[in-house]
């Protein structure tokens, strides 16, 4: 009984860690660029696939992949921002949404074409094999690692944004980018770097996910629906909100799976509907 519950909660916590990492990136991007980045799931998949391809073709292991893969994904983000998104500035943000949605279809289509539909397993790195017996449950090391690192990255990002001068630029730019630029800040470059960073976070999450889930071309598209629900529940553009909501939603899912397994896949969307009715700006969003 307790074992089943804690097992589901652990699974929920792990899913929640990915939700947090992904919705954090979405929130940062939306806050500053006013772009709803529908390519986020595809960029997460790209991160996982780069890690898998690196191992398969170049013999690059997990630890290097954890560093390189987000850098490559982030670099593609810089290009996407510079070449496409920058041209859509000042237009309705529906255009950015459609562009990134199209981009996701293209990326996922290419990988589907090249690798088919079936998943490829990615080995857990040597150092993180095995686990801890906690008495009431067995905790695999890799899963503990995912939770700790995701939380660390999420809280680290939050700290940088809320408490440092770099973060002050981001916050000010989120409020009024035109004015910030009139004060001498190169806001276009800031937009590009921010998109790159948000996308790199997605790539990072993808590498972290590779040993847990199968690496498939569609791994991002199923996840991203839940992540968007998380963003809506937490409130578009709220950094702390997206982290807390990400973890929270994962736990709620886990708990539901224990109580009423059939409902686990819809509980998030029910939650979203309720939040939209009661607090349309989201739990942590500023009410207009």
């Amino acid at each position, binding site marked *: 009984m307790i074992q089943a519950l804690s097992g589901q909660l652990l699974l929920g916590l792990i899913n929640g860690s990915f939700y947090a990492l992904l919705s954090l990136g979405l929130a940062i991007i939306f806050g500053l660029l006013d772009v709803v980045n529908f390519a986020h799931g595809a960029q997460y998949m790209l991160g996982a696939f780069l890690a898998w391809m690196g191992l398969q073709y170049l013999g690059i292991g997990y630890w290097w992949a954890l560093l390189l893969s987000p850098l490559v994904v982030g670099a593609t983000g810089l290009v996407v921002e510079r070449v496409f998104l920058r041209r859509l500035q000042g237009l309705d943000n529906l255009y950015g949404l459609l562009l990134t949605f199209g981009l996701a279809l293209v990326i996922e289509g290419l990988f589907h074409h090249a690798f088919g539909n079936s998943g490829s397993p990615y080995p857990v790195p040597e150092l993180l094999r095995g686990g801890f017996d906690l008495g009431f449950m067995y905790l695999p090391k890799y899963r503990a690692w995912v939770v700790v690192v995701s939380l660390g990255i999420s809280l680290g990002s939050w700290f940088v944004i809320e408490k440092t001068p770099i973060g002050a630029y981001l916050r000010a730019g989120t409020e009024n980018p*035109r004015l910030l630029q009139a004060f001498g800040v190169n806001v276009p470059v800031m937009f590009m770097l921010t998109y790159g960073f948000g996308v790199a976070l997605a790539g990072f999450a993808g590498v972290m996910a590779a040993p847990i889930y199968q690496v498939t071309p569609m791994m991002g598209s199923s996840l991203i629906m839940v992540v968007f629900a998380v963003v809506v529940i937490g409130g578009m553009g709220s950094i702390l909100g997206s982290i807390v909501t990400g973890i929270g939603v994962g736990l709620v899912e886990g708990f539901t799976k224990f109580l009423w397994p059939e409902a686990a896949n819809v509980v998030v969307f029910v939650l979203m509907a309720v939040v939209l009715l009661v607090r349309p700006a989201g739990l942590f969003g500023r009410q207009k």
Partner: protein
Amino acid sequence: MSAPSAAPILRIRDLQAFYGESHVLHGVDLDVAEGEVVTLLGRNGSGRTSTLKSILGLVGRRTGSIQVGGQETVGMAPHRIARLGIGVGYCPEERGIFASLTTEENLQLLPRIGAAGMPDAEIYDMFPNLLERRRSQGTRLSGGEQQMLAMARILRAGARLLLLDEITEGLAPVIVQALGRVVQQLKERGYTIVLVEQNFRFAAPLADRHYLLEHGRVVDTIEAGQLSGRMESLQEFLGV
């Protein structure tokens, strides 16, 4: 200092400005020499704010010529205009204090844009309230304090050409007086200032020259020396 014979630090010719389809400036011309204080006077909607925004590249589109320190800025990105030699600092009409930043973060946000950033000690000497309230959220400050913060941050960044949009609007008389002393001090230190004002009594003793705007055009120019003879027509023009 007020002789317009010196090469102007700000020179505007036939400036036209647009927000989307609407054409709001129809040929503004003005010159400001280094160290001068000039005002832009006019009724609401006459185009004073749009003139300041045009200088910074914050309108939708502009044509004509705007030279800052001899450099043409029409077509230049706003962040490059701010960093031009002299350093261009802007106090927007709505003050533009960032709500998600503390007072201190607002103050320190701006990158250095000129050679001569005012040291913190001098800033806090000029605006002592900002030191006491440095940990408060920027928009929790009183209107007067927010205005001081908006001034302080551009001085700290090193701007020497100040574009100040209605800095006395909605403030209590004592605070208006304090701001008057600040502007006077800055003038004595050789700052160049373009002042948009409704409060003519505030602006009159500070300015070297007044530009009168109507329907997006400069319709008249009054030197400080000619002011006493022109008071009546000026008051009628401003509708006060």
